[in-house]
């Protein structure tokens, strides 16, 4: 559809002027070119997903076939007189037909037409080695079923989800409390404390890692979920910032009304602020779920001795390191089974999610 320049509807001139028509044609062409370019770009950008998806349905033999197509393909066979024969694409009288090779010969081979086997054997002049095998769409689900048990998928899925959900509760509760404190109360040093909070974002993790890890070892927490869960109950800079920015936009009148009615600060938070802050609380929850699902380093160092308590991300990395590169289908199946949850969460909540990124990214 072409979009012409906005024009008044009633007094429509019978003929658009030449200049307007030329401009609208140029705009159409531009928008076609730009959109086409974007399509090519996004196709390239997401093509690895397609590749991974296709590989996950292929057996090692299918992948290593010479000239293997992009889809899961196996050479087709045809059963003739109780035996399986490979099917080739045979040019006969200028028409390419798919025929089962029954008897191989150097210069002349014998074929059977699978659609008309009753007609018997047909002789064909030429080297059968030059023929292309006929392929059939043969996806395998073995990679998925194998990964299910080899990766210990149900166990790791449970671990990952449990760690994500417990951490989500800790993050939402603690960050809401802290953001409320920053957004609604005046006290000396508030600005300074907020500056410190934000600056922790720029602190390299390595600077705190050594003593923290050492203390967790001494506490006997290494090899448990505690190092992953306990810190979430003490708030983090990103989410506090996100929540605070939102709370600042909520008018104070209702807080004050609640205060006059005798509600304490905590009561006000629960019955006045939280009901108005659901969008941002959901954003923080989704952020935490995705962050926790994708976290690699913390589970790696704290759970390396306990594969049964490990998360999917680390489990997948260990799995792919232990498997030889000859099983790409298996590894890609495991990969897709790991990424499916955060991707679906994102697609469901993409509006909330991206608005959260804008707030933490731009307004800081």
């Amino acid at each position, binding site marked *: 559809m072409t979009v012409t320049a906005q024009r008044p509807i009633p007094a429509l001139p019978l003929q658009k002027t030449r200049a307007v028509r030329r401009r609208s044609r140029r*705009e159409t062409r*531009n*928008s076609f070119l*730009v*959109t086409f370019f974007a399509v090519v*770009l*996004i196709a390239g*950008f*997401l*093509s*690895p*997903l397609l*590749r*991974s998806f296709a*590989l996950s349905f292929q057996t090692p033999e299918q*992948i290593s076939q010479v000239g293997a197509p992009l889809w899961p393909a196996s050479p087709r066979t045809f059963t003739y007189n109780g035996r399986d024969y490979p099917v080739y694409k045979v040019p006969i009288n200028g028409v390419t037909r798919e025929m089962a090779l029954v008897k191989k010969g150097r210069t002349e081979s014998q074929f059977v037409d699978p659609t008309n086997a009753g007609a018997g054997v047909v002789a064909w002049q030429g080297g059968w080695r030059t023929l292309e095998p006929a392929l059939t769409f043969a996806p395998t689900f073995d990679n998925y079923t194998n990964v299910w048990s080899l990766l210990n998928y149900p166990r790791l899925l449970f671990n990952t989800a449990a760690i994500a959900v417990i951490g989500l509760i800790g993050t939402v509760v603690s960050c809401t*409390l*802290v953001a409320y*404190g*920053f957004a609604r*109360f005046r*006290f000396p040093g508030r600005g300074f*404390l907020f500056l410190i*909070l934000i600056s*922790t974002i*720029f602190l*390299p993790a*390595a*600077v705190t*890692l*050594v003593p*923290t890890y*050492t203390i967790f070892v001494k506490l006997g927490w290494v090899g448990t979920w505690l190092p992953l869960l306990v*810190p979430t*109950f*003490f708030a983090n800079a990103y989410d506090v910032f996100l929540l605070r920015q939102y709370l600042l936009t909520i008018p104070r009148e209702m807080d004050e009304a609640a205060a006059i009615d005798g509600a304490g*600060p905590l009561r006000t938070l629960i019955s006045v602020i939280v009901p108005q802050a659901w969008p941002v609380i959901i954003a923080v929850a989704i952020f935490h779920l*995705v962050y926790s*699902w*994708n976290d*690699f*380093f913390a589970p790696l*160092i704290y759970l390396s001795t306990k594969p049964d308590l490990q998360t999917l*991300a680390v489990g997948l990395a260990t799995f*792919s*390191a232990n498997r030889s590169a000859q099983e790409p289908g298996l590894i*890609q199946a495991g*990969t897709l089974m*790991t*990424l499916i949850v*955060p*991707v679906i969460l*994102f697609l469901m909540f*993409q509006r909330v999610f*991206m608005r959260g*990124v*804008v707030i933490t*990214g*731009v307004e*800081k």
Partner: protein
Amino acid sequence: MIALRRPRMSRLAWHEARSGLLFLSPWIIGFLAFTLIPVIATLAFTFTNITLSQDVPLRFVGLDNYLALFRDPQVWESLLVTFKFAAISLPVAVILPFAVALLLNSRSLRGSALFRVLFFMPYVVPFVAGVLIWSQMLNSDTGWINGFLGLVGIQGPDWLNDAGWVYPGLVIIGVWGIGGGIIVNQAGLKGIPTELYDAARIDGAGWWGQLRHVTLPMMSPVIFYTLVLGVVEVLQYFLVPLVLNQGAGEPGGATRFYNLYLYKTFFAFQEMSYGATLAWLLFLITLAITGVLFWSARYWVYYAGESSSS
């Protein structure tokens, strides 16, 4: 002086302050326990000989760890590796999200909301999954990247196993992480007043002129922000090589990043004090580079809110 001028807090104000601090207490406790005390402890560790097993008695060793640092060739080699990689990856990390945001904000693009979701989506893919998917794409024989290069007549390199190509390979692996940058850049572009473009057009500026004289200056705070975060991130880079080859440094030591060395000192060799010293050096380098960036900002970052003196 200030203390004298300020009146004593009223009962009400004191009440409010107490409630506020009470609500802040989870973060304050967490900050002390997981940030401030560990940072100080890390510094204290650097002057001792702590190891996880502590075979030798704990003692104060002065500047021994720092002297060891300066004599340790692996420190300098791994820093060089990190800087080389940063030189390739930082421009991409800054320019690519900006360019994609420009495309998404183009008036000529149809369906830009859909494109925005699609460009952002890989940002939420677990990075381990991203690494495994992209290393498949970069495979020299079966990967689609070399397959595509082959179609246009170029013999693609063995990306991840060739010391000369591994950095571009790692940059390609990281390309799925640009989603956050795209969103931030796009929000920045939306914030540029359209009058500026109208004025530039009246002055005869074309697409390039508008980009050069309106978009880039107005976007400089966003570019500055992505650059600073990019520096902080790239200096800590090591997880991708850790997943790719278990941190072996292949090919030929090209992926022995500084943070990888730190990680190994710490977890493989369990030398806490030396690891802490490495961490402090990393912290100081990060501070120094971001400090230089903040200093340079006055020459190239334009804040619309401030009056420009030039």
